Each structure stands twice: as C-alpha cells, then as structure tokens.
C-alpha cells in the first residue's frame, strides 16, 4: 500500500543515477530531506533536474541507487504504488473530466468512500480557490486556473511527497508571482515534502528552504537560499545565481579568505571562495554590487556602452580596457562613450581560481 502522510520522517535519496545509453543524465544524487522541507532542484536545461524528478516519481527507472521513505524502499515500486503527488509542467489535466473529477481521480483510485472523497475534493477546491469553476472542463479554464487544478489534484491525496516540474513556466509574470505565494502557502498547510524543479533562480530563492544546484547531472552545491545567494561555492554556480560579471584578475595577497587582486592595474579587495592553483583568478560580482561612482578613485575604469532605466536606478553595460564586458548599477544616466569608474563592494566580490 502507498505510504501514508501521517507516519514518515525522512526521504532519503541514496546515489540515485540514471543513464541514457552512454550519457550519465544523473550521477549519484544523494540527499536527505526532512518532513516539511521545501527543496528546489535548480539548474540550466539539461542539468538532470527533470530526470531526477522523474526517477523519484517512478516515471523513469533508475540505473543505480535507491530511494527510501524512512525504511521503506520505494524505487522498486511502480509509479502508482509510490503514492507521490506530481504537478506536471503542462499540467496534464484529464481533458474529458470536470475540475471536480480531475481532483477526485486519485481518491477514486485509492478506493476512498464516495462521501469522504467528495468532502476532501471540496476542501481541496477551496484550498486552491476554484470554488466557482468546479463543474468546468479543463479546456474552459485559464492557464492559472489549470495550474491550481493540477496542484489540487496532486495534494488532495495527502501524499508524503509532492513533486513539481517547472509548474510556473507557462504562466505570465504577474500570475507567476501570485502562484509562488500560493504554492508556499499550500506547502505549509500540507506539512509534507515538496521537491520543486526549476531553472529560475528567483523562484528557487523565494520558495525553497533548501536549494540543490545541479549541473551535468551532478550536485554542485546544496544550501539555503541565503547561502547560495551570498556564497556560491563554484564559479558556475555563481554565474547561475546572478553573478553576471566575470572579471579576470591577478592575485596579489591572500590572508585567510580576504584577498587583494589586481584588475587592469587597479587594486581591489574581495573574498576567496576556493583554493587557487596560480595567481590567475576570476572575480565574480553581481551588477547590483558594482556601482558607477562620481569620482575615478579606486574603481575599474570602463567605457559605457548602454544604459537602461530600472525605475529606482539605472542598469548599464560597459567595457573595461582589456575588453571585459561589465554590468553595473548607476544613480544617473551616463552617456555612451563616457568613461566611468566602477566600484566593487569588497564584501560581495567573490574570487575563484581561473584554471577551469
């Protein structure tokens, strides 16, 4: 019988791997997830995050490794016996069933008595705020409403684990923000585990308790959103987390994690995130932490190429003497061709080894 929500404590992924022919789409995914946690699998397309989700759901057989819910081994069970809820990217609503029947499908398959099932369906409809739409077919609903049905259908069976595969990617920007809060609220009400796959770092940062960054089928970093935002462990993770500036530099001095680097003859302070092999390093910094100052002191000189108004401030791109493209923040509009000095916040300038 499918595991019930009431009893479990931990979901354990132990070396879960999946090969497609000779390609290792997923390598050694090992992770313990506690009950109540919201975990985001984050990475660019092709990083193996959807493969991981499908392996957990049982839609793809694993090549190696095991999945446990407490002591019960799940990866040997077919999908229908795992009892996980899943929200698909295209929602996968049954087009010939009404909203109510879609949501009630899982309860019907579990043989829940009709009266109890009806009551739970109504409660789920209320949870996702679809009261007036319950009699409609999915084709008559908007994208956001279909999304709510898909979520309700997955959670009504009170699964120990809810899997979400980029559920917001088909929605417009405003609805996406709204649904984020909804998903977080529903997760909190359910008290189960949610594993959420996305390529959108903002989504992962705002939703998850813990983020797992994947690349080439391997875990690159696991941490809280704060960890990943402020202290990416690798340059590629940093780039993915929004450190758009990659500035080649020479290492001057290092004491502990505090380093001094030379960028085109300008001395900058930063924080080392790993051991370096030589003195060629890469400094990574977010555009928001690189500021166009009014004086030329202590900044990286660069020629402005384009400016963009953002409301509260300006966002610009410029080119340094050695040709490096730099993205920065400014308090006023600088003319293209103007030389500015870009000042880096030393606490937010992360330094990685250049040898990749």
């Amino acid at each position, binding site marked *: 019988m*499918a595991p019930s929500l009431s009893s479990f404590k931990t979901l354990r992924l132990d070396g879960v791997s999946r090969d497609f022919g000779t390609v290792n789409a997923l390598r050694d995914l090992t992770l313990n997830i506690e009950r109540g946690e919201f975990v985001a699998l984050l990475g660019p397309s092709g990083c193996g995050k959807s493969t991981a989700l499908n392996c957990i*759901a*049982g*839609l793809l057989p694993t090549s190696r490794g095991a999945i446990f819910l407490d002591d019960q081994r799940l990866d040997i069970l*077919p*999908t*229908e*016996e*795992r*009892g*996980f*809820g*899943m929200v*698909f990217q*295209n*929602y*996968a*609503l*049954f*087009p*010939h069933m009404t909203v109510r029947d879609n949501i009630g*499908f*899982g309860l019907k*398959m*579990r043989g829940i008595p009709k009266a109890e099932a009806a009551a739970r369906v109504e409660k789920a409809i209320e949870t996702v705020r679809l009261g007036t739409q319950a009699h409609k*077919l*999915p*084709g008559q*609903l908007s*994208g956001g409403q*279909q999304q709510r049905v898909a979520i309700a*259908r*997955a959670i009504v*069976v009170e699964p120990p684990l809810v*899997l979400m595969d980029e559920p917001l990617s*088909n929605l417009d920007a405003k609805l996406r923000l709204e649904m984020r809060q909804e998903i977080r609220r529903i997760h909190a009400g359910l008290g189960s585990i949610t594993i959420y796959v996305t390529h959108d770092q903002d989504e992962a940062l705002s939703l998850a308790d813990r983020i797992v960054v994947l690349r080439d089928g391997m875990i690159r970093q696991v941490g809280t959103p704060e960890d990943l935002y402020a202290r990416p462990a690798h340059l590629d993770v940093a780039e993915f987390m929004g450190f758009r500036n990659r500035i080649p530099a020479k290492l001057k001095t290092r004491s502990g994690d505090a380093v001094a680097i030379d960028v085109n003859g300008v001395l900058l302070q930063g924080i080392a995130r790993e051991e370096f092999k030589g003195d060629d390093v890469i400094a990574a910094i977010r555009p928001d932490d690189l500021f166009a100052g009014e004086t030329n002191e202590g900044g990286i000189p660069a020629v402005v190429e384009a400016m963009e108004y953002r409301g509260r401030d300006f966002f610009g791109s410029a080119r340094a003497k050695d040709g490096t493209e730099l993205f920065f923040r400014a308090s006023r509009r600088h003319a293209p061709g103007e030389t500015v000095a870009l000042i880096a916040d030393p606490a937010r300038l992360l330094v990685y080894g250049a040898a990749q």
Partner: protein
Amino acid sequence: MSSVDYHSNPGLKARLAARGLDSVTLLVLPAIALLVGLFVYPFLYGLWLSFNPKDGSLLGNYFKFFSDPFLYDTIGTTLKLAVPVTILNLVFAVPVAFRVRLMKNQRLLTTILVLPITLGTVLVAEGMLNYLGPQGWANRIMMLFGIISSPVKLTNNYWGVMLSLVITGFPFTFLLTLSYISGIDPALEQAAATLGAKASARFRHIFLPLLIPGLAITFCLSFVQAYSVFPSAVLLGAPAGPTRVISIAAYQAAFEEYDYSMASAIAMIMGAVQLVVVAFVLQIRNLFYRGPAGGAKG
C-alpha cells in the same frame, strides 16, 4: 490640398477579403470542379436514374428490391460480413497500436503493415485462394501437426471473404487507430499513474474515453470500406449464396441484366444503409468528450 477620404466604406475587394474571399480563394476552384464532375454529378444522375425504371413508375425499382428476398437479403448478408470484420479489425488494432506507440522504430512496422493496402484486394484474394485452399499451406501445416485430419474449407465461403477483409482492412484501421492513440498526451497517462491508477484503470478511465471519438470515426471509415466489398466476395466467397453481397446484386443488375436504372437504385440503397450505420455510430460518439486530447489548453 488633396485629401483622402478615410471615413467612407472600404471597397468591395476589402469587404470580400474580410469575409475570407480573396484571390487565393480561387485555388479551390479546380477541386470543386473535380468534385462536381466526378462525384456530385454522377450521384445526382444515379439518383435520377433510379427513379426512372423500365416499368415507368417512380418507385418501381425500390418496390422490386424490397419485395424480392434474393435482392433485399443482400443488405443483411453484407452487414453480416462488414460489421464483424470492422469490429474485429478494431479489436486487433487497438492493442497493437498501444504497443507500437511506444516503439522507437515505427516506420519499418508501419511499412510492412501498409503493404497489403498497396497490393490491392485482387492480389490478396488470389494469394489467399492458394494459401488457404484445400492443398494450401494452411491446411497442410495443420494436417502435419495433427490439428485436423482432413482439409478445412476456408475459401469460397463466408470465412474466406471475412479473412480477406480483415487482412486488407486491418492496416487501414491500424494506421488510423495509431494516429488517434499517438494524439493522446503521454503525460496524461503518467499523471494518472502518479495518482495511483494501475494500467487497467489508466486504460479504462483515461485512454478509452479519449479514444472513443477516434475509434468511432475509424469504425465508420472501415465499415464503409468493408460494406462495399466486391472482388473478394466474388473470388474468395460463394457469390451465389452466403456471400452474395449488395455490390454483386448491383453488378448483376447493371452488367448481366443491363438494367442501369435498377443498378442505380441498388447503389442508392447501399449508400442509404451505410449512411444509417455511420449516423448511428456518430450519434453514439456525441455522448463522449470530443475536445483535444492534450493536457494543456495548447
């Protein structure tokens, strides 16, 4: 200063274009000409001809048809062949299509299955006469393994025609069914599985309801094809008795009795029977969901 009047009504050309009529519309003319010349005109001519029998009365042909068992029995004889053949083809096609849908190399199999269509009914009938005849491979092998002691009569009767209709009709039924099954979003089955539905429940609750409208269309097309059986009923059947199908009656009226008016009447009756069956099946189809079988709005 010259001014253009922006406020007057748009010209005739613009108004026609707004209703979807522009010069591109002319491209349908050859098709319409073809349709009128090869279908509409012969049909109307046949209809008119059927009401002008030799005896001069309006409904003479129809009275004659429905008062002579040798003629009106052909309706039942043909139905007895066409309906089971169509159902059998569908029953075979659905599971095969379900398996083939998951295969990577569909093209080879599809090519093999389409071959009988390209061969034509006459060649298949000739082949079956040899293969299923008293001295054919089928009987010899069954006798070799002791399944039967004397040859079974598989040709020149009902079963010979039925088998040949299954063989020539199956590829068509299969290809249509496969296209309908492939049109169902695989994520729907996956979603049903995550909700706890076993394979049989997934078929019953997801695939079947989404497939029925397509199967109804497939039934109609396969049925119409089987109902107009002629060559195999003559070659493989017993055209004087158990497989005296309606097209044989029409043929005899036209080319043995030279009564084109009667032949037209029989053809009209044949069309009417097909129409009734098709209308009935489509009516049933209306009871089911007929929208797109994808998961999202698309």
